[in-house]
């Protein structure tokens, strides 16, 4: 397997180029405008890969995505949750869908909470084993924290319901073995997380099971209460950025 994270170090965003060395096919997950379309094309090329899939874990509200531009440059459609309310044509992804690169494959989990359309991707390398090796958790499970529930909803009740969904979604990761690596869409002081998010971009299920404070809470009400009480201010221009990523015309 080929595994290349690309970061925006100013905002704490992570994106991933994941490739199959046998077939030379690659998937790019959550490509960032600050990294730029050309950089993804050049990175894939340098690892001997051709991009065959462009995916988003969710429609982002904190940073601009280049998923559409990258997908267009390589002649594919962006893969997004079937629940994503975007205005452009895309490839709808559902629970259990599998994306095959060759020996490397991704399996889709729907993990709503941060947004309705939040997805996670289990990553397999069948050259090594039939079991998943890592999970891309998007803005569901972070290193030390979980994704905030309030950026894509209009009301306090909406945020409360989303936080309850997030509780179910993040506890689902606990069904995975301890050795599975955790690769979220953010790290550090990103506005998409809470107060406990680590500067370290990657972790394991076992470490988070034991030391992630929000995974220690085994009661949905206490989890919701904790999440809403510790909310940071929303990222600047969240509604406008999300609107742009949805493909809506946004007035300046």
């Amino acid at each position, binding site marked *: 397997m080929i595994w290349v994270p690309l970061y925006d170090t100013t905002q704490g965003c992570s994106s991933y180029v994941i490739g199959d*060395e*046998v077939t*030379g096919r690659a998937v790019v997950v959550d490509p960032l405008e600050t990294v730029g379309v050309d950089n993804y*094309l*050049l990175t894939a090329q340098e690892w001997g890969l051709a991009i065959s899939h462009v995916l988003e874990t969710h429609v982002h509200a904190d940073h601009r995505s280049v998923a559409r531009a990258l997908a267009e440059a390589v002649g594919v459609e962006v893969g997004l949750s079937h629940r994503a309310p975007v205005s452009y044509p895309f490839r709808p992804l559902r629970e259990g869908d599998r994306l095959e690169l060759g020996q490397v494959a991704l399996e889709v989990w729907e993990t709503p909470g941060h947004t309705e359309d939040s997805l996670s991707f289990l990553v397999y390398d069948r*050259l090594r084993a039939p079991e998943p090796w890592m999970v891309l958790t998007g803005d569901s499970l972070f290193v030390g924290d979980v994704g905030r529930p309030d950026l894509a909803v209009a009301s306090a009740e909406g945020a409360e319901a989303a936080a309850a969904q997030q509780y179910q979604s993040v506890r689902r990761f606990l069904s995975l073995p301890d050795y599975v690596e955790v690769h979220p869409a953010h790290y550090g002081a990103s506005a998409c997380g809470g107060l406990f998010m680590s500067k370290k971009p990657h972790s394991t299920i076992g470490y988070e099971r034991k030391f992630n404070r929000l995974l220690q809470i085994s009661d949905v009400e206490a989890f919701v209460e904790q999440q809403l009480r510790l909310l940071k201010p929303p990222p600047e221009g969240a509604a406008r950025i999300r609107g742009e990523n949805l493909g809506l015309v946004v007035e300046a």
Partner: protein
Amino acid sequence: MAVESLNMLWKQVEEGSVVLLDIRPQGAFTEAHVPGAVSAPYSRMGWAPAVRRWLNSQPGGVAVALFGDNRVLVETAKKALEQLDVPVAATFEGGVAAWQAEGLPLVRIPNLTADELVKNLQHWKVIDVREPYEWRSGTIPNALKIPLGELPHRIHELDPKARYAIVCASGNRSQAAAAFLAERGFEVGNLAGGMSVWLGSGHPIERG
């Protein structure tokens, strides 16, 4: 690129007045490439100086053209050469599909998966192009063992009517060997992923 200039480019490649550098990844080159093209996968790290050194070692008077399947990559590679004062005579960014659509020729080398090869082993002669010390980990039964470097002067040992599956450790050297043989008229396939996939899949091996 206009059709006339495309045909012109192909004529120049054929007669040898233009060297066509294929900047796509090695794997894409092996699957299909223009006859006579040279595989030179673009990278931001040291690619242009390496190309210039190689050109300086070639007979003089040859112009350079670039072949790729993406505008950004072709433009980036072109700029990198021009910064080293290596002029680029022509570029083609349509990839093999657009090249073939113009009726121009390609060398194609099918990728064989380990599962396909094991099922059809009776139809293929296997050439293992790894180094002798690597054969100790096991070889495909009845494989001919010819290290990549020896292939050019041992080509007379091969049967022009046979089909050859080329094998190495990970599928990289076998791509180069397969391209070399295909350009000389042999029918070849490339074991994708090489012996690491063959061994990982638990297929039969022989130890000599």
